[in-house]
């Protein structure tokens, strides 16, 4: 009987798939959408990049058995609170708004926020200069919040699922400028694909929105894990692992004391 | 062969021979009472033909006997076994009904063969899946039965590819496959083209001749008179007249029966 087999297969799949996770395993959530040079997937399906290396180093230092789990950036916080993942380490800035829902570890990197635009344009990272222009940002980021708050005079604020799509539209000329993390944009304009554009400078700081650097997010009250992560971050900062990883990717430090 | 209730009670020792006994059966659809107390007893080997105009309740009566319709009240005894009923006439014991149904093989007006199965599969379906007969044995028997109704060469054909007469003969083979103690025929030739009626009647006639117990709802008066051992004439949910065929057809007493026989061109 065919139907019976289908039922059997479905039930088996559900039981096998929903098996309880082993207690020690820590699922570290990263964004499923590539965010080079921090995290991107290669054609063999492996994740790599600065942040992935740091995740591995922190987990090793904190003696945690980590599993990297890609989830949609757009739903990464619900995935954490819902238990699909245990930690967010996806270049998430520590902001007051987010702290209402989740807890953060100490920051493990902090970089300025910049505006990139076409080399031939005279755009500057100021509200006056961006008046009437089309700005692209990634959804659910501090940049989206910042642009909404500070560049409300812009002609249009276009919201993308990934920074990559915003970059793509910048190249295609469909947006005039994009705001993102300096490292991510520096990496992008240095590639052949991003040769059209350049970084026009950092935007005026607003700690309340842009946050206090990038930290690891954990569920509220998950203090044991947060402490472990803090210890791990501190350890790789102290023993030079952090600097060593950074030197593999960048020319300067991306950690501010 | 007296079928009268009172008579039957007098010859009580003969109840072992009773194939089927229905007492005071009522059936209503909503406010419409279709059967108003019908009783009938058929002993082994009896062929009871039920005749009557349309709307007289003859098909409903047949369908109540194997609970395709739920009777409103009355009792039904099959092979000496009382069917357990609730006060509202619905079957109290589903298992019992299912068991009894396998002994009452029904032949429908619209054949109702399973169109997704071949004739052979249709015939072995109930023996194999309900009566748990070994498949090989069921197939062997089914082939004999299909041969008997003249469809031996059509065993692997699907019903829809056959004429109505062939389908009805296959349906009779399907009924025979369960070794029924009573066969119920619900106007088996009404849906057939006139030229196909004969082939089906021939099969039924043979079955009657070999002493099968049958209840037969039919419009074929000539045929009824020829094969039946007893005739029941239903009028508006009641038995208007009954008796041996020669009496009922030869010398109808009720004016309604006389009128009825006139209209059907007797």
């Amino acid at each position, binding site marked *: 009987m065919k139907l019976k087999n289908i039922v059997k297969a479905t039930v088996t799949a559900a039981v096998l798939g929903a098996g309880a996770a082993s207690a020690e395993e820590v699922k570290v959530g990263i964004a499923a959408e590539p965010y080079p040079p921090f995290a991107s997937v290669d054609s063999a399906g492996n994740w790599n990049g600065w942040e992935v290396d740091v995740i591995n180093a922190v987990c090793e230092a904190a003696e945690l058995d980590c599993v990297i789990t890609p989830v949609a950036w757009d739903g990464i916080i619900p995935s954490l609170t819902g238990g699909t993942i245990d930690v967010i380490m996806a270049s998430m800035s520590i902001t007051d708004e987010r702290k209402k829902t989740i807890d953060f570890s100490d920051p493990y990197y902090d970089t300025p926020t910049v505006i990139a635009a076409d080399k031939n344009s005279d755009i500057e990272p100021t509200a006056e200069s961006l008046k009437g222009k089309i700005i692209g940002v990634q959804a659910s980021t501090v940049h989206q919040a910042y642009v909404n708050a500070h560049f409300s005079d812009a002609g249009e604020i276009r919201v993308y699922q990934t920074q990559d799509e915003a970059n793509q539209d910048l190249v295609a000329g469909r947006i005039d400028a994009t705001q993102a993390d300096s490292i991510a944009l520096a990496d992008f304009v240095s590639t052949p694909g991003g040769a059209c554009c350049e970084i026009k400078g950092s935007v005026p700081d607003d700690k309340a929105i842009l946050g206090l650097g990038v930290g690891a997010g954990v569920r509220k009250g998950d203090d044991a894990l947060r402490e472990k992560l803090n210890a791990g971050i501190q350890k790789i900062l102290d023993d030079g692992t952090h600097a060593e990883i950074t030197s593999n990717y960048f020319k300067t430090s991306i950690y501010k004391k | 062969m007296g079928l009268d209730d009172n008579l039957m009670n007098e010859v009580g020792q003969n109840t072992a021979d009773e194939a089927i006994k229905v007492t005071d059966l009522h059936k209503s659809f909503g406010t419409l009472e279709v059967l108003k107390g019908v009783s009938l007893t058929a002993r082994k080997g009896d062929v009871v033909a039920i005749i009557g105009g349309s709307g007289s309740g003859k098909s409903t009566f047949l369908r109540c006997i194997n609970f395709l319709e739920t009777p409103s009240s009355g009792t039904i005894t099959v092979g000496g076994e009382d069917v357990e009923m609730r006060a509202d006439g619905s079957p109290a014991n589903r298992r019992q009904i299912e068991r009894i*149904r396998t002994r009452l093989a029904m032949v429908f007006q619209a054949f109702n063969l399973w169109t997704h199965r071949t004739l052979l599969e249709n015939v072995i379906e109930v023996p194999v899946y309900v009566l748990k007969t070994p498949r090989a044995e069921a197939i062997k028997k089914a082939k004999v039965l299909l041969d008997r109704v003249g469809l031996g060469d059509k065993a692997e054909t699907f019903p829809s590819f056959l004429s109505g007469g062939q389908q009805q003969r296959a349906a009779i083979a399907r009924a025979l496959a369960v070794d029924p103690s009573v066969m119920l025929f619900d106007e088996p030739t009404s849906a057939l083209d006139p030229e196909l009626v004969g082939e089906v009647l021939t099969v039924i006639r043979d079955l009657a001749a070999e002493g099968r117990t049958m209840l037969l709802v039919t419009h074929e008066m000539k045929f009824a008179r020829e094969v039946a051992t007893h005739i029941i004439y239903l009028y508006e949910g009641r038995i208007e007249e009954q008796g041996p065929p020669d009496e009922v057809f030869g010398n109808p007493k009720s004016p309604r029966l006389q009128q009825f026989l006139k209209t059907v061109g007797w």
Partner: protein
Amino acid sequence: METLLDTLGLAQSMELLSLSPPGWGGNLLRGLVNSLQIAFGAFGLGLVIGLFGAYGKLYGGVVIRDLLGIYTTVIRAVPELVLILILYYVGTDLINQASEAMGYGRVEISGVVAGIWVLGVVQGAYSTEVLRGAIQAVPKGQIEAARAYGMPAFLVMRRVTIPAMMSFAVPGLANLWLIATKDTALLAIVGFSELTLETKQAAASTRAYFTFFLAAGALYLVVTLLSGVVFGRIEKWARRGQPSLRAGQSR
């Protein structure tokens, strides 16, 4: 051959699509396997829900019928994307709460299972309607005959109703299967690494958007066309007893 590819500017595309790294063809195929797995599971789960749903709608009590009515109406009026998000979060939330209440701690739900659950619930609503229509299309007499010969209800369903309704249900189910395969693409938005997400990742990493989107489109199309052939066969088989039955087509 190679010069031809070169002149058409396709050589680069071929390289990008090659099966072993640095080509991304392997990723696409992996994504396709995931997509098909989810589609298959969801379709199966949908069938199970649909069968119960159809029987419930036809023979259930008033409460069951009303509940099923609400289920099919809501599911068929709300976009799959929204349902996927709601069911995904509700599902993981409920399972975790249940599991924590029983003292097991949080449970990991694999992407494939979550995808099957989410799409299966959506498929179930459509299956319910398809199967209900098919069951109603089975001639009453055939079911009556089965009952008249003493078949218990479940046996009637297994031996008569379900096989007999197949010929009416297959065209609709074929459509549902195609919807299931295409709906897996929506899971990309929740971050499951199925074909569409793999495609997007490959396209973003190589900037060859056109190449990869076209390649993925071709893969989906192959699945569709092959499914068409397979369902054509199934339909022919299901209709073997009916010489002249024309099946309706709907989306």
